[in-house]
């Protein structure tokens, strides 16, 4: 096995230059100029999204000629139609119907061809800066590139997309759980930071109070499933006797959202998520009750009260994407390029353990044995000998199960 590091990007990259593209999905008007300073809520570009009208061949749906089909239309031109609404029906033996595939206005119907047209209302779209920084480049008709010196922290998975807000530390330490009683009005419009696990109830309380996002150490899978509205995930729900309960909703690779459904956590078909689309959750360590790595927590907590940009997007395959937290720094900060800050594993380095049994614990490298060796489990791979920071316990850990901390 190779000594090549799996993700050559560090979890924490302090004082680097972050550049982010802010782009419209369709051409529009760019509202900023190169060199301009932007605030997170500034709109960089805007446009309107007019969707293509949908054509429905009513004659084919009813299996009739155009003139016969026209007699069976149930909706007049100009009427509003719902998705799935029957717009024409052929009765009697061998009944067939024609349904509206989208919601909109039945804007046209041509009796000679029996083609109905449904027009959908156009929607405004805009690209926000989400980041306090400087516009360095323009993308004509689409958007701009915003740059800022920043500290970048990566999580393991998240819920939601891009958001920004003031960082508010709500737990006393990296191991304190985020419980509903810790949540008060100070989280409104803010990004809350807590060290331990977070519960569905606490997350719902945050949403009630208008929080924009949460950064937590961990979350139990049942709590996340409960938060996402997976049926059967509440503690009170009766477990089915077969044991095939809410766990079946973690199915990956089959979903409707791009990248072959590898967006995490998966959306359940047919169930609308109770999570508001602009709310973001970022989990730093993983599932279970695992405290955040103290180093990561302390680094972020030092920026309490500052504006941060977060992105919860997580995709495991087909275009890998991990959630990130960008903490913009003063423009005078000396920065370096991210490539130069790659992790260096050596004797004495501080590392973070990733295997489920020791997830999130900090340790120090005591030695790097040459060649593959047996880890605690007996599996043979390149290993490191480490000592746990908390207890001093010595372990032999596969190299793929450690992450170098800067």
């Amino acid at each position, binding site marked *: 096995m190779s000594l090549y590091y799996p993700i050559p990007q560090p979890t924490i990259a302090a004082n680097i230059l972050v550049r982010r593209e802010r782009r419209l999905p369709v051409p529009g008007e760019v509202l900023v100029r190169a060199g301009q300073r932007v605030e997170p809520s500034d709109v960089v570009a805007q446009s309107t999204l007019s969707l293509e009208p949908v054509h429905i061949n009513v004659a084919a749906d009813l299996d009739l000629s155009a003139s016969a089909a026209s007699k069976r239309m149930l909706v007049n031109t100009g009427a509003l139609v719902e998705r799935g609404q029957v717009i024409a029906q052929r009765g009697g033996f061998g*009944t067939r119907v024609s349904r509206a*595939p989208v919601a909109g206005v039945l804007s046209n119907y041509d009796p000679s061809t029996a083609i109905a047209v449904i027009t959908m209302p156009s929607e405004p779209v805009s690209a926000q800066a989400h980041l306090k920084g400087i516009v360095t480049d323009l993308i004509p008709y689409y958007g701009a590139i915003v740059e800022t010196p920043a500290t970048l922290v990566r999580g393991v998975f998240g819920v939601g997309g891009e958001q920004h807000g003031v960082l508010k530390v709500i737990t006393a330490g990296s191991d304190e759980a985020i419980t509903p009683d810790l949540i008060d009005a100070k989280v409104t419009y803010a990004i809350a930071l807590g060290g331990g696990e977070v519960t569905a109830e606490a997350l719902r309380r945050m949403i009630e109070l208008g929080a924009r996002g949460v950064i937590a150490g961990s979350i139990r899978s049942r709590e996340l499933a409960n938060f996402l509205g997976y049926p059967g995930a509440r503690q009170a729900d009766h477990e089915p006797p077969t044991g095939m309960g809410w766990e079946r909703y973690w199915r990956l690779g089959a979903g409707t959202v791009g990248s072959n459904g590898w967006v995490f956590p998966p959306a359940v078909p047919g169930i609308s998520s109770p999570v508001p689309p602009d709310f973001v959750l970022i989990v730093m360590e993983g599932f279970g009750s695992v405290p955040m790595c103290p180093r990561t927590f302390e680094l972020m907590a030092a920026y309490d009260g500052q504006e941060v940009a977060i992105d919860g997007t997580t995709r495991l395959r087909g275009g890998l994407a991990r959630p990130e937290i960008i903490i913009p720094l003063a423009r005078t900060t000396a920065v370096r390029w991210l490539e130069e800050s790659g992790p260096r594993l050596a004797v004495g380095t501080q590392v973070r353990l990733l295997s*489920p049994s020791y997830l999130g614990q900090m340790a120090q490298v005591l030695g790097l044995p040459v060649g593959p060796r*047996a880890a605690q489990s007996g599996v*043979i791979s390149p290993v490191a000998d480490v000592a746990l920071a908390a207890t001093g316990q010595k372990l032999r850990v596969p190299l793929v199960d450690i992450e170098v901390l800067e």
Partner: protein
Amino acid sequence: MNDTDEAIQQGAPTVATVGAVLAVDIGSLYTRAAMFDVVGDEYRFVARSSANSTAEGPNNDVTAGVYNAVRELEQVTGRKLTEETRLLMPQRTDGTGIDLFIATTSAAPALRLVVAAVSGDISGESAMRAARSTYTQLVSSITLDEGLLELPTEEEVLFNTAATAWLQNEGDKLLALPPDVVLMSGGVDNGPVAPLVRLATAISGAAREQGRRAEEAARVNKSAPGMPLVIFAGNHAALERVAQALAPVSEIIETANVRPTLDTEQIAPAANALAKLYKERRMPEVTGYSVLSRWVEGSIVPTAEAERLIARYLYHHYGRETLLVDVGATSTSLMLANAERDEAVVLGDMGLAYGMANLLAQRGPANILCWLPFEMSADDLTDWVLNKVVRPWGLPQTARDLALEHALAREALIAGMSALQGGVPSPGRNGSGSAPSMRYDLLVGTGGLLAHIPRPGQAALLLLDALQSTGEGLGSVELALDTTMLIPALGNLAQHHLAAASYIFDRDCLVWLGTAIVPRGYLLENRKAAGGTPPTAVTITVERKRGESETVEIPYGSITVIPLRPDQRAALTVKPAPGFRIGNGEPGKTVKTEPGQEVKGGLVGLIVDARGRPFELPADADVRRGSIRRWWSALDALPTGETFQTGPFAPPEPAPPTNGAEPPDALPTSETAPAEAQGGEAQAAHDADSQGANP
């Protein structure tokens, strides 16, 4: 059948005219490189290396991972194989460079597939078997008989609301998880046409909507699966009307009917059409594929196709009825080659890293937990699995993590076996279902988990637990592991140089775990422990040298190892107890090995699995965990003193059983084999003396 298949069947030698061969296998997590060359006057395996696959960011190009693996191979062999960033080809007189570069891959995402059939249990099952022969993910299935489960009332018939509701419902089902391909089947040749037209109408409506959604997504720079294509493998008389009903689906691939008559099945044409689609549509999606395909000789081969060739080779060349299993990061494959069947099952979305969430979702936590020798809650298991899914490259750090991976691997293989048996319920789970005939006498395991397994006994037990081998044909099953993971490379090499591939396979590929003897049959609950001790299931007399024999009685419900080293063979006399039989023998009939057909030893030894077939795990959790610990100890799969207590998820100490069962750690002497006979650390798997014997 291609040229290689014919050559394999005829055993025709191929003259190898090349020197060094570099073969890479690109998985979803790891890229493995192997090098073969002429050593002395024979082809041999020289070295192998491995690097992380780089299909995903930040590299977004699999060739980076290939390059890393080749550079490591250079370090291991001390031979120069690259020049700047290019492969050094052809081989030079000083030994540097290579003559042939070939590649296999399983890194491409599986084809998302819907099976649409007239009848779920006839045409649907045949279509399902065709669908599972390559890397597919079965997202849903629609059958007409499902629609007929609730018979419409007279009024509903009048307004036909039941039919329209069914169409709408099936359309929604298709749209919820949009497929790339719809495999349509149904009707015997020249049978009724109307049901297929009705099925096509449902598909057409959903396909049109799926196409519209994709267009909408493309307008806002997003991606969504476009209109699916349809493989039609049903009654050909219906093709014209089905094609009309399927409009606007324009891409319809016509293959032979999977069920030309009610009692005949031909899945190969539909399976080939799917394999072709996977190669043409999915494999090029792997980032860097086009560059890699210019480097390689021939084309890049799907890993499962190369593995299937090896299973065929073992059957046709050696007459060994073979089951080859591969538990990978994203997919699980089983290849069976025997006198009656030549079949592959590829579960394209069930594996031990990326595929673990699907494995949990489809098998359920209860099934997985019952293979653990310690207590764990379903919620903790789900947390553990999801942590592995979000960090797929991790390796098990503790014995507890390893036991969890092995439990999941057992369930992946059970799912594969169930598919291979034609979808009947898994054997042995609470006595459900009876297994149809699945004859094989050679069981070969490959894939990262099995190849890197720390103890040979763990591999043997994992395979026996999950596959429930019976030795139906010969009365015994030989177990082997591909610890060097050469099978995909050799299957691919066989298409270029069969003689070289078969020579290397015979000498360098397999490590023998041993031979398993399995008395078939089981005892009813009330007879299991009459009088306190379980009755004897089988008595075996082992003769390692002429005149020196040893007789062992094996009680029902236990698994025992009789020492037999890899270099040893033994003549056996196997006397099953009344009600039990060996292979296809009569119940209670004694079986003896013929001279020259003595059984082979291995790193584990001679394994006697007297747990019954089909075997059931005890329902009581404490008794079950106790039994699992005893079985693990018997095969030296349990490290001495292991309590599985390490890490923050450590469970409380299990309470001593109160129902008369033996305490978990009390090991009956008959089940404890001498340590030296049972292999040891995995390095032993690489000992020269354990290899070199052909199958």
